[in-house]
């Protein structure tokens, strides 16, 4: 029983992280029907920057917002340079390749300059674990799922209640019509990539005390976040958070009940099977192709 609670709790922690990463994909996809394939590396950038700033003697309370801001600027750069000029309709692949290329360069750059060795960020909430039903967990870890849910609430509110959020939804549905209504489609695209990058950086910093910060940390987190978004259906934020949590818990159960080395194989395998059964995602609506 204790083991089950332990798996579930730590699954919600890692799942919350997947959910936040997946929400980043959701935000970008909603705005321009394209994403930053290097979103995982963007997350890594935020994480690494915060560690580097801490070493340089910048207090965390200043360093963390700085790192998030810098990563958001990187998101702007990605949209303007790598996505916008190469995104022409549903079968264009240029934006995929260009963002992969930038991600590759970023990862290689960080490996060389920051070093391949993983490092960590301290957190005052990582000192004494608390016990829940016999299972132990650090308060900082519990922050992750709470933050994921809070972000979902914030996003929900933003898309429903603010003018900018409504404009973004309008663009997602009909970019041309939205443009004719005076919505600045390009600005919204920039804004959403910056927001997604900031969210990624935030996830990376939140995870830094729990998992190790390294140049390679982004690949798996980004991939799993993207898979979560796809399985949820790309266009449903709540569904994304649910699938994110579920995937994290599933992983921990596989590790606990079977074998750590089976985690990726079984996890990805189940995701592919789910996509076979639900081509539009678990929470996605079938998109009617207007012709």
């Amino acid at each position, binding site marked *: 029983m204790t083991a089950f609670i332990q798996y579930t709790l730590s699954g919600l922690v890692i799942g919350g992280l997947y959910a936040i990463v997946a929400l980043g994909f959701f935000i970008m996809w909603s705005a321009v029907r394209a*994403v930053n*394939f290097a979103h995982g590396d963007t997350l890594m950038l935020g994480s690494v920057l915060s560690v580097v700033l801490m070493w340089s003697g910048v207090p965390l309370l200043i360093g963390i917002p700085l790192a998030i801001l810098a990563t958001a600027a990187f998101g702007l750069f990605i949209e303007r340079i790598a996505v916008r000029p*190469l995104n022409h309709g*549903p*079968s*264009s*692949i*240029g934006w*995929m*390749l*260009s963002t*992969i*290329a*930038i*991600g*590759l*360069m*970023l*990862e*290689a*750059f960080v*490996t*060389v300059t920051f070093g391949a060795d993983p490092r960590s960020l301290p957190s005052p909430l990582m000192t004494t674990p608390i016990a829940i039903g016999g299972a132990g967990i650090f308060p900082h870890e519990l922050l992750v799922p709470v933050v994921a849910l809070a972000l979902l609430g914030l996003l929900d509110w933003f898309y429903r209640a603010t003018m900018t959020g409504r404009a973004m939804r309008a663009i997602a549905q009909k970019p041309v019509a939205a443009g004719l209504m005076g919505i600045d489609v390009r600005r919204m695209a920039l804004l959403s990539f910056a927001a997604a990058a900031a969210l990624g950086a935030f996830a990376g910093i939140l995870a830094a005390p729990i998992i190790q910060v390294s140049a390679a940390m982004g*690949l*798996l987190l980004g*991939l799993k976040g*993207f*898979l979560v978004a*796809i399985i949820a259906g*790309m266009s449903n934020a709540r569904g994304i958070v649910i699938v994110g949590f579920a995937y994290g818990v599933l992983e921990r159960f596989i590790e606990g009940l079977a074998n750590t*080395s*089976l985690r*990726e*194989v079984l996890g*990805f*395998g189940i*995701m*592919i*099977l789910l*996509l*076979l059964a639900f*081509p*539009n995602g678990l929470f996605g609506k079938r*998109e*009617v*192709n207007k*012709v």
Partner: protein
Amino acid sequence: MKQPPILSSGLLASVSVAGALCLVPFAVANTFQLRVVMLFLIYALVALGLNLLVGLVSLVSLGQAGLYALGAYTVAILATKAGAGFLTAMLGAIAVTAIAGVALAYPTVRVRGVYLAVVTIAFGLIVQNVAIDWRALTGGTLGISNIPRINLGAGPLSTRDLYWLIAAVTFAGFLIHHNLMHSRIGRAMRAVAQSETAARALGIDPIRQRVLAFVLSSVFAGVAGGLYAYLNRYVNPDTFSFSDSIRFLLMVILGGAGTSFGPLLGAGILTWIPNLLQAFGKWQLFAYGALLALVIFFLPKGIAGSVHDLWMKLRHRRSQTIREAGSWPRPSSEIDALLRVEAKIRGPVLQTRELSIRFGGLAAVSGVTLDIERASVHAIIGPNGAGKTTMLNALSGFYPPTEGSVTLLQDEVGGRASDRIARSGLTRTFQNTELFSSMTVEENVLIGFHARSTTGFLATLFRAPSFYRESRQQRQRAALLLDYVGLSAYRDETAGNLAFGHQRRLEIARALAMSPEILLLDEPAAGLTHSEIDELIALIRDLKRLGLTVVLVEHHVDMIMAVSDHVTVLDYGEVIASGSPSSVRDDPKVIEAYFGASLGPAGVSA
């Protein structure tokens, strides 16, 4: 008729590649260099396969190294543990990678191409994980060594013999790749990438084409992996990482996606460039990323694609002639024979019963019952938003009915995929013409023949005589259809460059290439000049004479009155009048629907 240029260029290409391959053993200085050439040939095979995916259906795989590894490990395991010979082991690799290809492609390509890219990354990681962790089978991080030399019956192959074998396989791969690209299958794949909607309307199943392309690219990678296992005689997980997948992709993009020679060029450059990149030391991976970025931003068509474009531009400049479209339609006995529809069944060819289409709570079409008679012109009219185009989309299978039925040639087709409906004999044009705009005018028409072609997959790949016979026949028929719509002079022009009215003609010619029994025209007169509309009327009459049934959605009242046998008027998704053009014109309900109040019959002709 002159020799089709594809044949001669193909012959030239294959002879030059074969010649180069034969010279290599005499040009290299030692075994080490020969092994590098073999490695290049193996990479080239992966790149050729990947090009079928990237260049034809515009999908990206980021897990090609995983499929390559799958082939290598299958061969290594079969050869060391089961004592399998070369052919058995290679067939095993082909089978395993083909299965993996279907399993990865089918779930992912139905909704969005991006999904394939993501899932293939995951697949690459799975393969690497399994290779590391399933020690009993794969030897873990140590890998599998002592893979026996290939023995085809006359003792183990020497390095030089192995070269001939690898060269022969890669050459076969090159031919298959080239033949597929320049065939109706390659054309259909490119069509799917350019406009899924138009491809469906022409009876092409996009999912099938995408899965086929990915399975082929998987098998190419699997065969290459198998050859690698025999060349290296040792496999371990390090060779098959994510960055190797990126490298394969870079080969295709750098060389030129969608070209015959691009993958060879790209593989060549990336086989020999690592020696150059050694200078970058730790920055090597960065250099790969930078190279990929440079190619995408400054050479998006790759080396071969850019050279080809330049060549075309130069040639075009030399042969600049003034062309004029002919008048149309131009009936001829050959066209009559090609398009004539013989009545196989009695009664209406297309029927709906209580058909409703709802989007959420909104009923775009509700309770529509229609009977469309053979060899008639049936117009569907109504004010904007009356549900006319929705109706066309329901008839052609683009929207599944929410309720009610659609019967095509006495066959219930409600909910059936649009490409299947098209193959059953109903095709259509689109309000905002959906051409394959970067293909030539002739190619657009040729794609229309795809669904009716009889040459099989293997006959196409290996260029059986039936392939040449059918290609010749289809080109002749395409010439007939282009003549029929007066576009013969534009045969080799890129479709996207045509004037708007000519694009409409081409779209109709392309639809006619399917030899449909029923043709749906969605606002064919929109944007046409007066004389063009007169010609369109003549065309519709001619099609009716040939036994085709034409369903017309149109705003142009004069045209409807001139050409229709039967008019159905929709308003708010419901039929408010149906009958002969004159009876509908005088119907007070119709007048009210158009003008909100009775103005009298004279008002309708506006």
